[in-house]
Every structure is written in C-alpha cells, then in structure tokens.
C-alpha cells in the first residue's frame, strides 16, 4: 500500500470480519537491511553537508584548489586512481561473496570476504600514503582549506570503512562459531552493499576534491552558492 493509502486509513472503525487471519502473512524484510538503508541515508546527509560547506568555502579568495596548475598535487592524480582501483576490487570481492553465498559455496565465500577486507585495509594504507605525500609537498592540514577538506573527508571515509571492517569481522566471527550460512544472508549482503556504497562515496569524494577552481565556481553557481 502507498504511504498515502496508509496515512488515509481509518483506524477507529471496527475491524472487518476475517481481517485478523491475514496478519502475519506479510513478507519480512530483514531488520539489518532496513537499518542499513537508514544508515546509508544518514551517512549521505553527513557527507552532503560537508560538500555544501566545501563548495561554499571554495568560493573564498584564500581557497587554493588541489588541481589545475602543474605544481599542484592532484593535477596528475594517478595515486588516487590506484587507490580507487583497489577499492573497486574490494567491492568486486564482496559481490563475489554474495554470489558464493547464494550458491552455498562456503570456501569461496570466506576467501571473498577475506579479500574484500584485506583490499579495504590496503585502500586505507594507500590513503595514508597519499597523506604522507601531501605532507612532504608542504600541503599540511592547516595550510589551506582545500587541504583541510581533503584530510577531513578522506579521514572520515576511512573511518567509515574501518567501521565496516568491524561489522564484517563480527559477521565472520559468528560464521566461524556456528557455520550457519543461511542465517547470515542478510548480514553478508548488507556488508557488500556497504562496501559498494563506500566505493560510490569515494568516487564522489575523488571527483569533488580534485577539481579546478573553474569547476568549483560552476558547481557553486549551479547550487546557488556562488
């Protein structure tokens, strides 16, 4: 039933004969999936607010974009492309785990989950190496607001990935305890969805953080923040 339909119900009327028998037949969506959808909504709002402040801040005179001129660190962003590739592989591994789960292949499942986790950890390590690269170039966290945003946004993305690793660790741990694949469907699918989401989020961050001042001006104008 649509939301309008639900909100138009007249609950004060007596229950129609035979209605009670139908209760309990509705399909049950696992709670973990519902809550993950809400969580992804919350994380989206969280990063969206950062983006709004970022675009707004990018229009101040002191903001020096990280790309555009040859000497700027992300005019050639091959480091970030490598990191992106690693995260794509992590996401593929997690999707592979979902396929293995559907085919009841426990060894393939465990290998895929391990690959997904290890690649996510590798991504975080590579992100830290990008931070070191920036530091070495003199692009410290307080040197310019563009740098501040880069550190803060990539750091928060990595924190979310770490949170995902903790959740995945708990799922794998419970699998090791009872080996019950059937009851872990929702949890593993949720982990995979979370990985895909963080990949998508990273690609948006990658795009946002490595544009030229002209592109920021265009986005700001489009958002009414120019």
């Amino acid at each position, binding site marked *: 039933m649509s939301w309008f339909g639900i909100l138009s119900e007249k609950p004060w009327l*007596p229950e129609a004969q035979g209605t009670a028998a139908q209760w309990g037949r509705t399909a049950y969506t696992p709670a973990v999936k519902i809550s993950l959808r809400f969580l992804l*909504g919350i994380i989206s709002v969280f990063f969206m607010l950062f983006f709004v402040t970022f675009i707004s801040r990018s229009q101040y005179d002191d903001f020096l974009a990280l790309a555009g001129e040859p000497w700027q660190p992300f005019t050639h962003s091959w480091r970030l492309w490598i990191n992106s590739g690693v995260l794509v592989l992590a996401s593929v591994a997690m999707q592979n785990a979902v396929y293995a789960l559907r085919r009841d292949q426990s060894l393939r499942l465990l290998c895929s989950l391990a690959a997904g986790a290890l690649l996510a950890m590798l991504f975080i390590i590579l992100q830290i190496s990008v931070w070191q690269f920036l530091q070495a170039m003199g692009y410290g966290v307080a040197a310019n607001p563009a740098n501040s945003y880069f550190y803060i946004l990539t750091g928060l993305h990595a924190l979310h990935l770490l949170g995902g690793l903790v959740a995945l660790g708990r799922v794998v741990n419970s699998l090791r305890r009872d080996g019950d694949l059937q009851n872990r469907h929702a949890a593993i699918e949720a982990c995979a969805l979370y990985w895909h989401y963080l990949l998508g989020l990273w690609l948006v961050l990658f795009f946002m953080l490595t544009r030229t001042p002209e592109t920021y001006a265009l986005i700001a104008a489009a958002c009414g923040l120019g």
Partner: protein
Amino acid sequence: MTHIAIADQTAHLHHPKTFIGKYIWSQDHKVIAIQYSVTAIFVGLIALLLSVLMRLQLGFPGQFNFITPDAYLQFVTMHGMIMVIYLLTALLLGGFGNYLIPLMVGTRDMVFPYLNMLSYWFYLVSVIVLMSSFFVTGGPTGAGWTLYPPQSILAGTPGAGSGIVLMLLSLAIFIVAFTMGGLNYVTTIFQARTRGMTLMRMPLTIWGILTATILGLLAFPALLVSAIMMLFDATLGTSFFMPAIVSLGEPLNHEGGSPILFQHLFWFFGHPEVYIVALPAFGMVSDVLSVHARKNIFGYRMMVWAIVIIGGLSFIVWAHHMYVSGMNPYFGFFFATTTLIIAVPTAIKVYNWVLTLWKGNIHLTVPMLFAIGFIFTFTHGGLSGLFLGNVVVDLPLSDTFFVVAHFHMVMGVSPIMVLFAALYHWFPLVSGKQLHTGLGKLHFWGTFLGTYAIYLPMHYLGFLGVPRRYYALGDTSFIPESAHVLNEDITIAAIIVALFQLVFVANVIWTLRSGPRSVRNPWGVASLEWHTPDVPPVHGNWGDALPTVHRWAYDYSVPGAKQDFIPQHVAEEDVEYEAGGRRSGEGE
C-alpha cells in the same frame, strides 16, 4: 529463523543470569531505558542547579563571590546544552523511546539489543566527557549553548582551551550514541510490529517518537559536521569557521573562514532539535489526555499528519534563528513564511487536544494535571514564537530576555510538563508502584505556577530590552529599577520551583522504598504496554505468544461497551456490549 524481537517462541531468548548481565551490561530495552532515564535525570538536576546559580547572580548581582563573570557564562552554557541534549533528547528518546516502543508495538525487544546497549554506554561516556570539563584547567566552555565561533575557541572566552574541545567531543560521542539508538527505534517500529499493529493503529506516542527519531538521524549529522570542523579549527589551526582575526592584540593564523557557515550548520540541526524534543512530547501528551479524559483522541489521523508535516517543515525554518546575522531580506522573508506555516499543524494539534477534553470524562489525576498544564505553557510559548518568527519583531527582541522566556516556555517547561505527566502515568508500569497523589499534586502546582512566575515577567524584561547572557546590567540607563526588582522576584521563583522538584525526587524514593503496590493497569489504558502477562513486564515482554492487535489504541467510552475501554488486543467478537449496544461500524 524469525528475528528474536518478533518471535512467538521464547526459546531463543537468552535470559541474563548474573546481576551484571541483568542490570549493568543489560540488553533488555526496559533496563536500558531506566539506565538512560536515571542518567538523564541526574545530569538534569545538575543543569537545574546551574540555572539556580545563574539566577542568583541575575537576581542579586555581586552578592556571591564565587559566581565570577566566567563562571556565570559557564553556568549558562552548560545549563543550556545539558538540558536540551543530555536531558530532554536523552530522556524522551533514550528513556521513553526505549521503554515504550517494544511494549507499544508488541515486540519482545528492540531489533538490535546489543547495539541498543552500546547506545546507552556511548551516551554515558558522552556525559562523563562533558562533566569532566568542570575539572579541567579553565573549566567548561562558556561560549553559550550555540557555541558560535570565533569567540567559542578564542582566548578570553571561558573554557576556550580544553572546555570547548571536551564539549565538542562529548557532542560527537552523543551523536554516535543517538544514531545507534535511533536506527534501532526506526527499524523496530517499521519492521517488528506485532500482528495487526498497522502504522495507523500505533499510539501517537510512537508516531511522535518515530518522527522525532528520523528528524534526529537527519539533523544530528549537521551538528556532527560542525563539531568536527570546529574541533579541527580549535586544535589543528584550520580555518573552516575562523576568519582572519586579531586576538588580544596578536594576529592569529586563521584566514578566510566563515562564522556564518557554522550558524547555518548549527541551526540546521538546532531547529529540528526543537521538534526532536517536542514531537515525542506531543505524542505522549495525546495519549495521556485521551486516557485520563476517557475519550478517544480527537482527530487521530489529523494528529498523525500534523506530526509528519511538522517534522518535514522543521528542516526549512532554521534561519529564523539568524535574522540578525545580516542575511538577504528575501531569505528572511522565506524563513518567516515557513515559520508561520509550521504554526498551522501545531495549532491543529492544540485544538485537537482541547477537543479531546471537550465533554470528556476528565479525571484530574496527576498525569492529567501535568498534561493540561502543558497545553497552557505550550500555547503561551508557541504564541510568543509567532512574534519572533516575524523579522521586524524579532530584530528588536533578538538577544533579549523575551527570547529566553519564549524558548523556555515552548521547549523547556512544556516538554518538562509532558515528561512529568509521562513519569507519573507510566511509573506504575515500570515499577509496579504508584507515586503518591498528594505529593504529585503539590509538585504539579508548585511547578506550574512557579514556572509562570519565572517566565511571564521575563517576557516583560525582554520588552524593556534587558539583554540575555549579560553577567550584570550595572547602571544601564534604559533599564529601570523595577527591572532589577523583577529579576529578584524571578530568582526567588526559580529557587522555589527548583525546591519543588525535590518533592518529586522524594516521592520517587519514598514510593520505591515503601509505597503500596499499584493495581494492574490503574488508569484503564487500552494500548498494549499495560497488557503484558507480568506487570512490570519481564524480559521478553509477552510470555508465550506475541499479542495480536485488533483495534487502535483509543477505544475509550465506546457506546454500548460494558467496560469503558477496550484493549487493543481484544477482538471485536470478544467485546462485551450492553444489550443492543454493539456499535455499527458505520461512519466516522
């Protein structure tokens, strides 16, 4: 396997056996609710004490040596933040949300009990971090509860070192705790309701909690974003909010940041926060009024729509807190318009509460007294909000005591009235004992009349132009002597109201220690929470089988029915009617 929260069988329910498992690291929503409530009330009492201290300074300036200008600002700041976040939000959603959601929608527990437990412990850590700021060098922040930069992190503002950092950390931890709890509430309500509990059969308490939780989940990220960015500004020297500035004669390393950006972020959270507090209160007061008037709630559907519409609108009114920040006049016009529009669904709710009482069989019990008191205080607070929502009226009244009086009436006193209505109403369910009625009535009249004695004159002070947050007014020419006398009176009233809260504390302690056991369902309530096999409900709530719901929660004084309420789980064929009295089911 069916999820444990909605399983009919209790075989998979792991009952804790040790004291620690039952009462400390408990995953039972009822124990967690009590943990939340006790912690929130404890910090609330601290905030109450802080308000008395600040009132002492305002009423009798210079009489108390220990209230220095810095200490005064710290009292104001901590009082505000504790009351709004750590008491009201935590008690309404963490306390009542946790206790009532599973019982009112008919589940055995929240869908993620472990996460629920973590939510409380994160909340406790946030409280400890906040309280620890009283003991660090420089003390807690004195930046005002809005924490506006640049002053909040600059030398010269009390607590600009460790105090503000601890405040921001504490808020961040609180938001993590709220998110864990909030995800649980929303998922439990959407996903784990018992058979027959359609969304439109849920009590309004649950609608209020659900909408407020969704608001919180979407609004708290704005506070988190601003807290993280300000933490970076304060500790790492970034310039998100900090402009180029000279402090104490020295130019600082900041450049180009926007303090206004912080204000937008803060109020994008701050205004929905008003409704995060108000909507659960709206829901609970609706249920209390209906039960104690022995009448179904007037306009249930309209009440649900109003809650949802208020929730939606609350995200597009935030800048009415910023009229004096120098915004574009068209912006002000837009936000004034949305602010006035939000008054429409709110007014609908007030009318419906009054119409619920109309020709009801009103029982002037203690919960009912507090609920009726709420209608008064909320209407008064709401009406002064209409003044402040208009730009031209707001500009001269901004930062005066009129604003303080307004928001205390609408989101201080009003939710507190509902909280007390709810505490007196649900206390027999939680403890199995009923609070003493005489002490309860004494508590009500002292609080109700006392708060009016505080806040009505405060509106007048605002009209005179008396500014808020000032340590002392001194010999200000436009403030007459009568204003100082009024300030003394307000302080005395505030002390009396604070003392009356001790009556409540004494009542709770006395009742728990030696009060008589309450009868089962003493108010004759139709909603599910009063119909568990055991009262107070035990772990798992529902014994061998979950209830099946056959009606809404407001079947009171049904024409022809023998009993003056019909519980939600009673089927139509099981209702006893007088001869020829069965209701037809026709019409609305």
